[in-house]
């Protein structure tokens, strides 16, 4: 099923700017890369380097200002169609759900992306299965509102949404930055489980190069809107060519560093 020649994303000199005139801000500045089917690619960079904007371009929530950005060889035109295949997990689980509705109803709302919704019974069953997949008993969240759950639970709800939708591509925008180390390991496990079960292509966005090293097939290092270095995790971390990569490597805690060298 996996076709490693298929380019999921293919960007060439893609630029995204905001504003105009003196206030022009270039968030993504001429990036060129491709991501192949079934790969896990990490996009690593500090705050404000443009990685989240690049993620939104991949999702179709932003459009590149110039350059080309192709999904499976085509421009992203039909967004609904795009979102049936490409989905996302966001950084802050608390801000991702509408606080006026129950979690369960919002997980069910995800079916809105399909042209024809499955039967109510099937939707309920799939939500139940998705909750079980992230180790949450459906009864635990029954009738609960987003603010009644903990951060770790909420992050798992976001992942449950992915288990419900079963997309081909997942853009994970710092899914672990708001949770503690224990939950972080859990979430990475779930991501790997998704990857195995669905043969998913994952774009993992993070500021933590140690984490990225652990999960990915390739690393992209971003700085000020540009991809300054890309390659296999071992190449990038052991022989960094760019000063920004060195900087990112120096910033990780010692214990992590030992672990990477090993």
């Amino acid at each position: 099923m996996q076709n490693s020649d298929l380019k999921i994303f293919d960007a060439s000199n893609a630029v995204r700017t905001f504003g105009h005139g003196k206030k022009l801000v270039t968030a993504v500045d001429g990036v060129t890369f491709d991501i192949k089917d079934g790969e896990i690619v990490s996009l690593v960079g500090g705050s404000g380097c443009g990685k989240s904007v690049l993620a939104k371009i991949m999702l179709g929530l932003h459009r590149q200002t110039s350059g080309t950005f192709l999904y499976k060889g085509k421009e992203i035109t039909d967004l609904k169609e795009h979102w049936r295949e490409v989905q996302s997990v966001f950084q802050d689980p608390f801000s991702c759900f509408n606080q006026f509705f129950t979690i369960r109803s919002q997980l069910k709302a995800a079916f809105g992306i399909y042209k024809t919704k499955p039967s109510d019974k099937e939707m309920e069953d799939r939500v139940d299965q998705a909750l079980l997949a992230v180790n949450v008993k459906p009864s635990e969240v029954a009738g609960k509102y987003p603010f009644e759950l903990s951060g770790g639970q909420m992050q798992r709800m976001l992942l449950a949404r992915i288990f419900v939708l079963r997309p081909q591509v997942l853009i994970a925008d710092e899914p672990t930055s708001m949770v503690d180390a224990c939950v972080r390991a859990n979430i990475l496990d779930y991501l790997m489980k998704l990857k195995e079960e669905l043969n998913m292509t994952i774009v993992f966005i993070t500021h933590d190069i140690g984490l990225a090293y652990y999960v990915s097939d390739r690393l992209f290092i971003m700085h000020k809107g540009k991809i300054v270095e890309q390659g296999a995790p071992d190449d990038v971390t052991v022989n960094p060519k760019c000063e920004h990569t060195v900087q990112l490597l120096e910033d990780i805690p010692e214990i992590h560093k030992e672990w990477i060298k090993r």
Partner: protein
Amino acid sequence: MKLLKNLLKSPMFVVGISLFLITILVALFGPLFYEMNLQRVGMPYDAPSGKYWLGLDNFGRDYIALLLRGLSSSLYVGLIAGVIATSIGTLVGLYGGFKGGIADDILSVITNLFVVIPQFVILILISSTFEKRSLALVAVIIGFTAWTWSARGVRAQAAALKSKDHISLARLNGDGIMKVLIVHVLPYILSYVFMVFILQVSSGILSEAAISMIGLGPTGDNAISLGVILNDANRYGGLSGRFWHTFLPATCVISALVFALYLINTSMEGVFNPRLRK
């Protein structure tokens, strides 16, 4: 519920809501307990007496009956104008603020155009084109000229919500713009919209009084509002003749009503806005 509890802790709110409820109760139930005789019952400008507590007006009508009728008319105008102005303002503001781009630019230009032309001038112009004006018509005219401030306020709130994650997620769920606006944006700014509504009601009451005061208010024999009472007092010499009972009570009622609404609005801001919470 918790919100209501917090509100009731604020003395400002308690005073405001009590004052407002009292005026509503008086307007609703006053006529049941008081003999509403709007015909001439004595000499013009008769001073307050044991029978007519607030005396008689320029036509020799019972002033208390006039006040009761005027109060309910003013509340009616205020509420209709408030509903219309808030609805238009909310729709325009929500759509423009959220959609952004050209749609927002066009809506902003229209809004700002209405803001820079004084509302009162438009009110006078529109009102004077109608020969006969019912209470409802006056309310509608006020509503259609007063929505701009709420549109600006709501627009700012909607624009701030635009980049929130739950909106992105709703879009990833395939929700269209109308669904996103109504389900994912509106609930977050509902408290703000409610505050805007209260201000629009009070400004509607004031606008009605002002437009009636210069003689462009509701017409017809039965059209009696607080503004019309003041206009009569002015036109028939109640003011210049210093018959205090022809203008002071109506002025006090308007002031109390608007004051109550402002108190409610201000105290709500203190509860809804966490930064102002004590």
